[in-house]
């Protein structure tokens, strides 16, 4: 398969089940909403070392938020509900409670609820106030008002937790490091316009794709040597002579379709730069089907088959 002169490998990205949640963060203005959200989603690139994978999903206008202030929505994913709850609570306490003017609200509906401000209320030392108020749909929601030095910290008691998918990905292979990075930036710009997905790595791009295992017994992941251009003569390389750089875009999303759509949009944007800008191939990271149940096959996705059936195709 070939898009705009860029080869699309007949392979798949391998993804796994996660638990996810969405939190809406508002503040006096977008600047402070971003300060809070950036702190909340900081050091959250990979569950391997951070516990959760998190990122900013999109900006919210004042009419989209519960308290009528501008904000951003963030998505957070973990391998299990216990870790997600723990990380959400810690990050709420250290990043949202502490951030001037910031408030946090539930961003997703689910029967499974996890604590947002439920336990943070004790910071109020007995002066916290609960309010049970109907939302726009007439459903009662519990909020906490916690006295803090800038006024009040306002937070909803809990947010929903849903089943989600992590580890959707694709690799951009090109002639030089700057050219591959430019293609990845174009892909991220396009993918950020979609909802329900985040790209958790710095700037949405990861340069250190990994394989399972290592020569060192204590390491359970190590550099993906088959895609390392400086090793192409000494390992069983996947790279041809004209590839000098490979970068990966990892996607976590709420559903299979969300991730598939995001991959399609991202790959199209990267391919739009074409071989004349050094973009040669698109591939994907997989572990031979051993890691997760969700297989995002590049060819069906680029043909527009975004449903879970593409997994089976």
């Amino acid at each position, binding site marked *: 398969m070939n898009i705009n002169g860029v080869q699309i490998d007949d392979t798949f990205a391998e993804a796994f089940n996660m638990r996810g949640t969405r939190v809406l963060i508002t503040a006096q203005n977008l600047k402070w909403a971003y300060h809070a959200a950036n702190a909340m989603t900081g050091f959250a690139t990979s569950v391997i070392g951070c516990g959760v994978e998190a990122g900013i999903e999109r900006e919210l206008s004042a009419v989209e938020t*519960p308290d*009528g202030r501008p904000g951003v929505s963030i998505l957070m994913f973990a391998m299990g509900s216990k870790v997600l709850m723990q990380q959400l609570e810690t990050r709420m306490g250290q990043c949202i409670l502490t951030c001037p*003017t910031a408030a946090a609200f539930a961003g997703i509906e689910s029967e499974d609820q996890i604590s947002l401000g439920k336990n943070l209320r004790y910071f109020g030392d007995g002066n916290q106030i609960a*309010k049970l108020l*109907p939302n726009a749909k007439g459903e009662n929601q519990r909020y906490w008002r916690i006295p803090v030095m800038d*006024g009040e910290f*306002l937070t909803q008691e809990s947010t929903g937790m849903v089943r989600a998918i992590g580890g959707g990905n694709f690799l951009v292979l090109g002639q030089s490091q700057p050219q591959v990075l430019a293609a990845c930036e174009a892909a991220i710009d396009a993918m950020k316009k979609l909802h329900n997905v985040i790209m958790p790595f710095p700037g949405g791009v990861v340069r250190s794709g990994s394989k399972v295992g290592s020569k060192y017994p204590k390491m359970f992941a190590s550099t993906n040597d088959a895609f390392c251009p400086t090793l192409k003569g000494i390992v069983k390389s996947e790279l041809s002579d004209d590839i000098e750089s490979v970068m990966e875009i990892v996607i976590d999303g709420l559903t299979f379709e969300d991730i598939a759509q995001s991959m399609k949009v991202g790959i199209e944007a990267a391919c739009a730069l074409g071989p004349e800008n050094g973009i040669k191939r698109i591939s994907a990271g997989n572990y031979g089907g051993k890691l997760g149940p969700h297989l995002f096959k590049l060819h069906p996705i680029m043909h527009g088959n975004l449903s879970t059936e593409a997994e089976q195709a």
Partner: protein
Amino acid sequence: MSALTFILKDAVKRIIDCKKLTPDTLQGKSLSDILAINLEKNLTVADVFDVQGDDATTLIFNNTTAQLQYIGYRMKTGNITINGDAGDFIGAQMQGGVLICKGNAGERAGDTMRRGILLIEGDAGDYCASNMRAGTLGVLGKTGAHIGYGMKRGTLLLSQTPAEQATWLDCGLHTLPFLNLLYQSFQTLDSKFTQLSNRRVRRWMGDVSGMGKAEMLVLQA
């Protein structure tokens, strides 16, 4: 389905206890069952009100006067709208739902209220929010003496400054983003409270003769 509506008969001149007329107590009852409910000695609903409608989750009281006491007593869910004045103890021991009084309310509105929203568009009599445990009580008109007497928790939202009391302490002027949430919760209601948008308030805390965790938010011009 239309709101279950109680229209007070002009001929009725005595005090009427409306404790039995809440969405919780009336749901599942037929019109004949409702008309047969005994409100006072030898006085049924049929003697006091003309009744229309069939949706017991939403009650409307029309042609009301201060004779009607205890409207919304212990209500847990649903909505009640009083199109006129109400007597004493409206919303007493309220546990949920929304109660709107479009006229004036008598004494001890929201007494020992635990949860829910009670909105009085007119004036409220003495001892408004007495012993209130929690919930939200708003008054757009004037309030009488001893407001928030023994109030433990909960929010009193007032558009007019009440008489100062020794057991309520001034916590200063504030702009509270929380009020946006509160105002948004009013938006589905048929009430003058939907017109509120001011987040600038003077906050009082009390009643410090007891627990002292309640707040009185007085809207600033």
